[in-house]
């Protein structure tokens, strides 16, 4: 269904609402729906950098399912690396 059709269906109930308002409501709806159903999955890649421990996450990421690292076992393969339970005892901000 295209946006135009979605807006028109909402406006059938609320003809007093402008397009911008309806689009905002549809965005609220989409965000809640995708957050609660965990329906949309994606993968992204970035490169490790020397001495950099933390890599910022895009705000669209709800939850990380798994992480693969190139050569984590010394081979050229992309290997799944485990999630640490908790956080490092010795902290830093690098």
């Amino acid at each position: 269904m295209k946006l135009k059709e979605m807006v028109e269906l909402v406006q059938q109930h609320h003809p007093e609402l402008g397009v911008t308002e309806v689009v905002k409501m549809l965005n609220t709806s989409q965000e809640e729906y995708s957050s609660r159903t965990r329906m949309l999955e994606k993968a992204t890649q970035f490169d490790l950098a020397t001495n950099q421990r933390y890599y910022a996450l895009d705000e669209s990421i709800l939850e990380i399912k798994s992480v693969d690292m190139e050569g984590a076992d010394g081979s050229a393969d992309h290997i799944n690396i485990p999630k640490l339970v908790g956080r490092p005892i010795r902290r830093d901000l690098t």
Partner: protein
Amino acid sequence: MAGTYIDNWSNKYATNQWVWWTERDAVGIAKFDPNTEKFTSPGVENNDKKITLFYYKKASAFVEPSSNDFSWTASSEIPGQFHDYLISKAIALGYERKPEQIQLALYFHEKFEKGVKEGRAYAYRARAGTVKYIKPVDF
């Protein structure tokens, strides 16, 4: 020794391994040595190694009409069979502004909740009819 493997980078036996965690809106990646409980950040030898994150994401928002990128033909990333539920939530939000029609807001909220249940079942089947991996949770 349990947990020991050959680390080909250093070409010797090692007991440490790469791990990840999340903190302050970032993902942390370091090599962890369980014996010393020490974490080591990626070194020069790890520079440019590819990291792949697999994740659940929020749906991309529709562009508002005030933007030049606005398009009436845009469509949601959420599969089409669930679009009615998205519309139901928007309708419910509209009725919440009208106290005299609050019952209609409840009706459309319930419809949305039904859609959430169906959506979770759809995500659980992972579109292939197979069971999806469920992450264990400690309580």
